[in-house]
């Protein structure tokens, strides 16, 4: 309320109207603009289809590079920038490589006490002729346990994506399994009949000789996995399930990993606390030697074979 002007004169000023609008007593549109309440939109089948068609059309136009200049520009710049960035990265890495110590030089930093001990005392300390096996399974046993768990968790993730849990879907998958392939292919079965035993024996040989010759759990396990895959593609899941179904898969996997974990834990704990561990190293060169390497190799081999087969089965029909 103004004190300078009388009431009637004040009511004509814009300040008065403004304050009335502010306090909500006055709406400038009332009586001056025709107002109609908004109609409530009704969603029917037709309007839905119309709306979807429009959205589709708009989307087509917006992302059509012929029509949308900005999208075209973005796409082109994107490609150019990506190529430039990759070339720059390659250049930087090439320059870096030229400054790295030359390979095969005796004075390189990598030829230090660490590799010296691995080579010179590896046989004596790990009991393994294969010094790589000695390194990864005795000196750096913890890393390899982690690496085995990487495989394990990868299977879990593939299971999340591909495992079919629903009973009806499962049946359908089983029915569709051989739709595009001949059942009981004679050539394949004949080849598998000869090859499978050899492959299995070769895999077992590589696993058991991991500490004596090149190979070990990872390579032997993948060979055995390949043998299982060949068997299942020749003879079908029904025959395989007589000796390797989901139940046995779970038991084998868990036992292998747990055994590895237990051996590993025993090894870490005794070593760290200065307790003598009672796993004999044996005579180097004998099959029963190498301390913890042989049992760990067997566990890793089992786990890797299971993983390989599980990948194949999950990709093929979403279950073991």
């Amino acid at each position: 309320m103004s004190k300078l002007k009388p009431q009637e004169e004040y009511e004509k000023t814009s300040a008065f109207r403004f304050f009335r609008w502010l306090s909500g007593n006055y709406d400038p549109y009332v009586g001056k603009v025709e107002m109609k309440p908004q109609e409530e939109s009704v969603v029917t089948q037709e309007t839905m289809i119309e709306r979807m068609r429009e959205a589709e059309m708009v989307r087509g136009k917006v992302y059509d590079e012929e029509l949308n200049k900005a999208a075209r520009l973005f796409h082109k710049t994107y490609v150019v920038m990506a190529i430039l960035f990759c070339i720059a990265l390659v250049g930087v890495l090439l320059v870096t490589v030229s400054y790295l110590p030359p390979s095969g030089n005796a004075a390189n930093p990598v030829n230090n006490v660490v590799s010296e001990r691995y080579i010179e005392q590896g046989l004596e300390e790990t009991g393994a002729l294969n010094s790589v096996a000695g390194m990864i399974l005795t000196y750096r046993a913890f890393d390899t346990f982690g690496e085995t768990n990487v495989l394990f968790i990868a299977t879990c993730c593939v299971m999340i994506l591909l495992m079919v849990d629903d009973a009806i879907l499962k049946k359908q998958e089983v029915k569709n399994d051989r739709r595009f392939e001949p059942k009981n292919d004679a050539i394949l079965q004949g080849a598998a009949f000869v090859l499978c035993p050899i492959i299995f024996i070769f895999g077992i040989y590589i696993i058991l000789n991991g500490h004596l010759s090149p190979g070990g759990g990872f390579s032997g396990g993948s060979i055995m996995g390949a043998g299982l895959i060949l068997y299942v593609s020749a003879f079908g899941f029904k025959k395989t399930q007589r000796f390797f179904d989901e139940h046995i898969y779970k038991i084998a996997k868990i036992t292998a990993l747990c055994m590895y974990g237990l051996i590993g834990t025993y090894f870490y704990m005794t070593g760290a606390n200065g307790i003598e561990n009672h796993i004999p190293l044996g005579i180097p060169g004998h099959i029963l030697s190498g301390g913890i390497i042989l049992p760990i190799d067997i566990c890793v081999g089992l786990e890797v074979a299971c993983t390989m087969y599980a990948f194949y089965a999950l990709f093929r029909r979403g279950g073991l």
Partner: protein
Amino acid sequence: MDYMRNFPCISIILCLFAGIISSGLRGKAAMWVNTLLLVVNTVLSACTLTYTLTLNEPFVYVMGKFPAPWGNEIRAGVLESLMAFFFCVIMLLSMLGGKHKLADEVEEGKTYLYYVLTDLLLSSLLALIYTNDMFTAYVFVEINTIAACGLIMIRQNGRTIEAAVRYMIMSLLGSGMLLLGLCMLYDLTGHLLMSNMKESVAMIVADGSYEIPLIVAIVLMSVGLCIKSALFPFHAWLPDAYGYSTASSAAMLSSLVSKGYIFLLIKIIYRVIGFNVYHDTRIIDVLFLFGVMGMIFGSLSAIKENDVRRMIAYSSVAQIGYIYMGFGMGTQAGMIASVFHILSHAATKSLLFIAAIGLTDVSGGSRKFIELTGSGYRNKWAGVTFTVGALSMVGVPLFSGFISKLLFAQAAVQNHTKMLPALIVLGISTILNAIYFMKTVIRIYTPVGDAAYTSVTYKDIQSCAVVLVAFIVLNVILGISSQPVVDMIQQGLATFA
């Protein structure tokens, strides 16, 4: 007391065992194993913390009978055990808080896989915290990456699969760069053990030989870990991954997974490269710049967002920016502030995700702001918790966010060259934080006429309410009695080198 030296090793191994055994159990049993594991690990890391505090210096634990440069080692100091303790507590609370959502969002037969992934995620986080060996770190980074992908995509709809693919591509790019840098560094030093690497790096720097490869290796490792922890220009994968996965996954991914990588970067800076060498490479200026940009652009994206979960996710980008800004200060004070912010952000962000789930549940499952109107009245527990989280994020005294902002400001004042930009951006970012968090708080406490949705009582959400209260308590403890925590961080960083 010496038997406590075994605890870090035992806790990592226990996690792996729990994961392996859970893969043969049904969902419910796996859940109990998981809860038990988290409780046991919390206790174990608390014991380790008290032990390291009495010991006053870090201890090294040889994994096996071969010592330092030949075998694997883990190392626990005050900082490591503090981190481990916090991570276990937050993971326990996140898992308990999001438990009731799992049944809706994960297929019945696959619930046990969720717990397997969580167990292995915890093992990898603990290993990243405790490791003293770069290759062990890399192996567990792999486990961490795969577990995080699984945690995103276990809720199977189109969006989470897309988010998981994006996350996987970016994260693997980061791992690849880390591995490349690691290989180069191994070529230059001939060691994988952190302390030996540091000696060799110091010798290389003193020599002046291999200058270029050293810088490239440092850059590759830093950029790799920045990508994995979603520093500003590399954050494109983040909103989808945090916004659409299940509540527990989002809480754990935002508060633990990215923090694990940041902690690894701290380890690399202090224990592999050496703080002074890292400082002299000027990479910290780049980290500072991107951190500062992240603080602003993350908040701006959050303001634009119309989906409450994605808004919280974008706020993570801003908070990661704070942490990298602390790195970028290049001072001890900045580092302390960053480490404290890791803790405070972990506590607050998981709280916000869990509370947001409570709010969206009483709004018909919609995360749009308009639907959230008045949800603070319908679920009082979640409303109050969300408000606490929002206040903490904005930096109101009494809550943890205030302390980290204070520490950042103190660190900025001590740094002459970066004082002005840091303080200005801190101010701007605080205002932006206030805009979007207070907008949400006002929205959830705007009364809506006749309630369109039913409200919940204490009885409906008993376990969840307890978790929410625990979160609030954790936040307030960090906010009120921050000094002991800051002292521990200081002590830990001092013995870190």
